[in-house]
C-alpha cells in the first residue's frame, strides 16, 4: 500500500499486522516542532514519539470515524472512538494533504467502505532533491533550477535569429578591435611625428587613418544597433506570444489561486526584462569582455610593468561590486515593494471612489497615501543615495590606477626609459578599461533581473494543465445531451470536498434547476459540466462518453453558458453576439437577438448593432448585457445550456423579458439553471436540491413542496417570508 515517507524499520517491526499507511508529522502533540510517526494497519493505529517510544495505540475496532480538523497554519488528525475523540497527530499546513488523506483512509477503514487511493496530489509538495516546498501548480524547484539552465533555455529563443546574431557578433568583434586603434595611432603621432618633428607626409596619413577608423566604427555601430533592435523586437514578440499562449492553455483552477492582474505584468515586463538581457545584456557583456582582454594584451605589449600597476585596483573593484551587489538587489526590492504598496493603495481607493466619497473619507485616504508616499520617498533616497555613492567610488578607485601609471610612467619618460607616446597610449587604454568595469554592477543587475523574469515566465510555461486533453479524443459529433453524474466528488482543495458523491441522471432536453444555500456547491456543479475542473473521484458522462475523453474544443461547442456576471468583450454588440460563431450573417445575429428579447433595444441605440461595448464602450445596463449574453448563447446553438443566476441583478420587468427569452432558449436543450429566486425555476422539469455538497432532494416543484419537512419547502418558505418583508419595505 502507499506510504508517504518510509517508516523506519525499527518501528515497522513493532507492528503486528501489515502496514497500510504511515506518515511523519512535523509537530509534537503539544504543538512544538518535532517529528512523530503515525502508522495504520488493519488492526490498529500507532503513534511514536520522537524518541521512538510509543505514544498511543488505538485499536481500529474502537474507531468510528476520523477527521482532519484544520486550524490556522496547521491542523489536527482526530479519531472518533467509542470513548470520545482522540488526537492522533498534529501537523503544520505543509502536511495537511497527507493527513487529510489519512483521515479519509481511517474513516473508510472504520466504516468498512472502499479505501481511497493515495494520489500525487496528496503528496506534500516539496522538491525531491532539496526538500524545500514547491510552489503550487509547479513541479520545478526554484532552489534547484540552475540559473545556467534557465539562461540556456532563454538563449534558445535566439535560435531563429542565428544568422543575424552571428553577423552582430562579427561586427561586435571588429568594432571592439577597431576601437583599440585610435590610441595606438595617437602613440604613433606623438612618438614618430610630433616627437622627432617629422615634417613629411606621415602626419597626414596617420590622421587620415584615424578618420577612417572613426568612420568605420560609426557605420558598424549603426548596423549593429539596427540588428539589435530588429532581433530584440522579434524576440520580445516570440516571448510574449509564448507566455500568452501558455496562459490560455492553463485551467481555471490555476487562475483561481492567483491574482489575475499580476499576469498582465508578467506577459509584458518579464518578457522585456528577458529581451533586455538577451540582446543588450549578452551583447554588452561579450563586447566589454572582449574589449578588456584585448586592452590587456595591448597594454602588456606596450609596457608590462606599468600594466601591473593598472591592474592593482581591479580586485578591489570586483570585491566592492560583489559585496555591494546583494545590498543593491534588496534595496531595489524594498523600493519596489513600497511603490507596489503605493500603487495598490491608489488602485484600491480609485476603484472604491464611490464609497470613499459617500462616506466622506477623502481626508483619510489622503493621509494613508501620504504615509505610503513618504515611505517611497525615503526608500528612493536610500536607493539613489547608494548609486550616487557607487559611481564616484568606482571612478576614484579606477583613478588611483591611473595616478600610479602617471607617476611611474612619468618618471620613466623623464629618465628617457620610455617614450611619451607609449605613456599616453597606456593612459588612454586604461580609461577605456575602467569604463566597462564600472558597469559590472549594471550588468549583474540586468542579468539577475532577467533571470528572475525568466523563472517566472518558464514557471507559467511549465505548469501542466489540470484538465489535459486526451491524445485521441472520442469523436462526439452533435450530441443528444444526456448528462450523467457518477459518484462525483470534487474539492478546490482536495482534502476539502465541495461536492460529495453526487449521482444524477439527466435526460436529453430536460431542464434541471439547481437549488440550495450559497456554498452548497451549485456553481461547482456547473463548473464540472463545463470541465473547468476535473472530478477528483467519479465521472461525468455526456451521451455515455466520459468528459475527459472529449476534446475540450468539441465539448465547448456543445455547451453554452449565461452567467450572472456577463462579460462582454471590447467590440461591437454584433461581434459579441457572434463571439462563438464568427461566420454568422447579420441576419443570424438579428434572429438570435430577437429570440433573446434584445433586438428592440439594440436597434434603438444610436449605433445599433455596431455599438461598441466592453471596457471602453457604451454602457449597457445589467439586463441589456444579460440579453446580449443570451443571444450569444442562442447563436452558439449548444446542446447543453447552463444558466447561472442569469436574472439575479435585474428588475422584475426585465426579469420577465429575460425569462421569456430563456424559455425560448431552453427548448429542446439539456439545461442546468441556478437561480436565486426560486420562482424563476418553476419551468424546470426537475429540481435538484443541494446541501453541503450533497444532493438531498430531487423532484418537480410541486413534488418537493409537498414534503412537509423538505429542504426545498424550507427554502421556499424562507423566500416567501423575505418577500413579505420586502413588500412591507417597498
Amino acid at each position, binding site marked *: 500500500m502507499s506510504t508517504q515517507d518510509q517508516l523506519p524499520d525499527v518501528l515497522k517491526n513493532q507492528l503486528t499486522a501489515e502496514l497500510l499507511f504511515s506518515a511523519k508529522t512535523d*509537530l509534537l*502533540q503539544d*504543538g*512544538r*516542532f*518535532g517529528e512523530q510517526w503515525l502508522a495504520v494497519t488493519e488492526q490498529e493505529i500507532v503513534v511514536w514519539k520522537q524518541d521512538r517510544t510509543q505514544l498511543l495505540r488505538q485499536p481500529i475496532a474502537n474507531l468510528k470515524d476520523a477527521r482532519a*480538523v484544520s*486550524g*490556522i*497554519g*496547521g491542523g*489536527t488528525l*482526530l*479519531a472518533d*472512538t467509542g*470513548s*470520545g*475523540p*482522540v*488526537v492522533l497527530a*498534529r501537523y*503544520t*499546513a*505543509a502536511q*495537511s494533504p497527507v493527513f487529510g488523506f489519512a483521515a479519509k483512509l481511517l474513516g473508510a477503514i472504520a466504516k468498512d467502505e472502499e479505501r481511497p487511493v493515495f494520489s500525487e496530489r496528496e503528496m*506534500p*509538495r516539496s522538491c525531491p532533491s532539496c526538500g*524545500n*516546498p*514547491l*510552489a*503550487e501548480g509547479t513541479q520545478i524547484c*526554484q*532552489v534547484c*533550477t540552475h*540559473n545556467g539552465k534557465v539562461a540556456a533555455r532563454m538563449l534558445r529563443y535566439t535560435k531563429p535569429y542565428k544568422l543575424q546574431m552571428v553577423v552582430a557578433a562579427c561586427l561586435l568583434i571588429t568594432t571592439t578591435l577597431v576601437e583599440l586603434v585610435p590610441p595606438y595611432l595617437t602613440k604613433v603621432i606623438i612618438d614618430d611625428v610630433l616627437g622627432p618633428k617629422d615634417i613629411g607626409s606621415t602626419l597626414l596619413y596617420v590622421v587620415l587613418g584615424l578618420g577612417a577608423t572613426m568612420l568605420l566604427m560609426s557605420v558598424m555601430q549603426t548596423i549593429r544597433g539596427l540588428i539589435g533592435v530588429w532581433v530584440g523586437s522579434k524576440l520580445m514578440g516570440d516571448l510574449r506570444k509564448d507566455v500568452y499562449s501558455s496562459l490560455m492553455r492553463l485551467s481555471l483552477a490555476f487562475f483561481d489561486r492567483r491574482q489575475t492582474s499580476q499576469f498582465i505584468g508578467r506577459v509584458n515586463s518579464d518578457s522585456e526584462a528577458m529581451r533586455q538581457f538577451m540582446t543588450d545584456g549578452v551583447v554588452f557583456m561579450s563586447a566589454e569582455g572582449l574589449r578588456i582582454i584585448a586592452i590587456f594584451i595591448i597594454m602588456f605589449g606596450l609596457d608590462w610593468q606599468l600594466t601591473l600597476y593598472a591592474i592593482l585596483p581591479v580586485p578591489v573593484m570586483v570585491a566592492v561590486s560583489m559585496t555591494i551587489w*546583494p*545590498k543593491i*538587489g*534588496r*534595496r531595489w*526590492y*524594498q523600493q*519596489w*515593494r513600497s511603490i*507596489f*504598496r503605493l500603487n495598490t493603495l491608489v488602485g484600491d481607493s480609485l476603484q472604491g471612489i464611490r464609497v470613499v466619497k459617500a462616506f466622506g473619507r477623502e481626508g483619510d485616504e489622503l493621509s494613508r497615501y501620504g504615509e505610503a508616499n513618504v515611505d517611497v520617498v525615503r526608500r528612493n533616497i536610500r536607493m539613489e543615495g547608494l548609486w550616487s555613492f557607487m559611481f564616484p567610488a568606482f571612478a576614484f578607485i579606477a583613478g588611483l590606477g591611473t595616478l600610479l601609471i602617471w607617476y611611474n610612467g612619468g618618471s620613466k619618460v623623464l629618465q628617457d626609459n620610455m617614450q611619451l607616446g607609449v605613456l599616453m597610449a597606456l593612459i588612454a587604454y586604461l580609461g577605456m578599461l575602467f569604463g566597462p568595469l564600472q558597469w559590472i554592477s549594471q550588468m549583474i543587475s540586468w542579468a539577475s533581473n532577467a*533571470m*528572475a523574469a525568466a*523563472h*517566472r515566465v518558464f514557471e507559467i510555461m511549465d505548469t501542466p494543465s489540470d484538465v489535459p486533453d486526451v491524445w485521441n479524443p472520442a469523436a462526439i459529433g452533435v450530441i443528444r445531451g444526456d448528462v450523467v453524474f457518477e459518484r462525483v466528488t470534487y474539492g478546490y482543495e482536495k482534502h476539502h470536498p465541495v461536492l460529495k458523491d453526487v449521482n444524477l441522471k439527466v435526460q436529453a432536453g430536460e431542464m434541471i434547476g439547481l437549488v440550495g444555500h450559497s456554498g452548497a456547491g451549485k456553481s461547482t456543479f456547473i463548473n464540472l459540466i463545463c470541465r473547468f475542473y476535473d472530478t477528483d473521484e467519479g465521472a461525468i458522462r455526456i451521451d455515455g462518453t466520459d468528459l475527459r475523453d472529449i476534446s475540450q474544443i468539441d465539448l465547448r461547442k456543445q455547451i453554452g453558458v449565461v452567467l450572472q456576471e456577463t462579460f462582454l468583450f471590447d467590440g461591437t454588440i454584433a461581434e459579441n453576439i457572434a463571439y462563438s460563431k464568427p461566420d454568422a450573417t447579420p441576419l443570424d445575429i438579428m434572429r438570435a437577438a430577437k429570440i433573446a428579447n434584445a433586438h428592440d433595444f439594440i436597434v434603438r441605440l444610436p449605433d445599433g448593432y455596431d455599438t461598441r461595448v466592453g471596457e471602453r464602450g457604451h454602457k449597457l445596463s445589467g439586463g441589456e448585457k444579460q440579453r446580449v449574453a443570451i443571444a450569444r448563447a442562442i447563436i452558439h446553438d449548444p446542446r447543453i445550456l447552463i444558466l447561472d443566476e442569469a436574472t439575479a441583478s435585474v428588475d422584475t420587468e426585465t426579469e420577465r423579458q429575460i425569462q421569456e427569452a430563456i424559455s425560448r432558449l431552453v427548448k429542446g436543450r439539456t439545461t442546468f439553471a441556478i437561480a436565486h429566486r426560486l420562482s424563476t425555476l418553476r419551468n424546470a422539469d426537475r429540481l435538484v436540491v443541494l446541501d453541503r455538497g450533497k444532493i438531498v432532494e430531487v423532484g418537480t416543484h410541486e413534488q418537493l413542496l409537498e414534503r412537509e419537512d423538505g429542504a426545498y419547502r424550507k427554502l421556499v418558505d424562507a423566500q416567501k417570508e423575505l418577500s413579505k418583508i420586502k413588500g412591507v419595505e417597498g
Partner: protein
Amino acid sequence: MTEGDKYDIRLFSPDDVYFSRGQGGVFQGIVEGKPYEELEVYRAFPFLYTTQYISIRNVKGEELGIVPDLKDLYEESATELERELQLRYFMPRVTRVESVKQKSDLWMWELQTHLGATRMVMRNLHEYMQYPGGGRVILTDISGKRCEIVDWRELDAHSRKQLEEVL
C-alpha cells in the same frame, strides 16, 4: 437561549463556561450547563486581540458564544483555552532570526521560535509578510505555515541586522 438572542452576540461570563481537555487530548468543556465532548475555538481578531473575543463553537461550527477576555476566566479554563488557541492557531513566536537569504527566486528564513527551530520559504516578501501594526510582523510561507514576530525592534542585534534589509 431565547429567540431574541439569536441576532445578538452572546458574551460568556466566567461562570458560564468550564473548559478542560478530554482523555484523547481534545478540547472540551461545559457551556452553560451543557457538556460538549469537543469544542472549537476561533479568534475573532487573530491579529489585534489574540486573547480577547474568542468564539467558542461546537463541532458543527455553530457559535455558542464569545469569551470576551481570556484573563477573566477561571484559571483552569483559561489555561486550557489558551493552550487550545495555541494549537489551533499555529503561530510560533520568533525569538531569533538566524538568516534571511535569497536563493534563486525564493527567500529562505532560518528562524528560532518558542516552539523550536524552523525554516520558512517565501516566494516573495510583499505577499508573504504582513504588518498588522506596531513592530509586529506576520510571516507566511509557501506551504501556509505562519510565524509571528511580536516586535522586531525588540529582537537581538543579529536578528535586527538580518531584518533590516527586508522589512
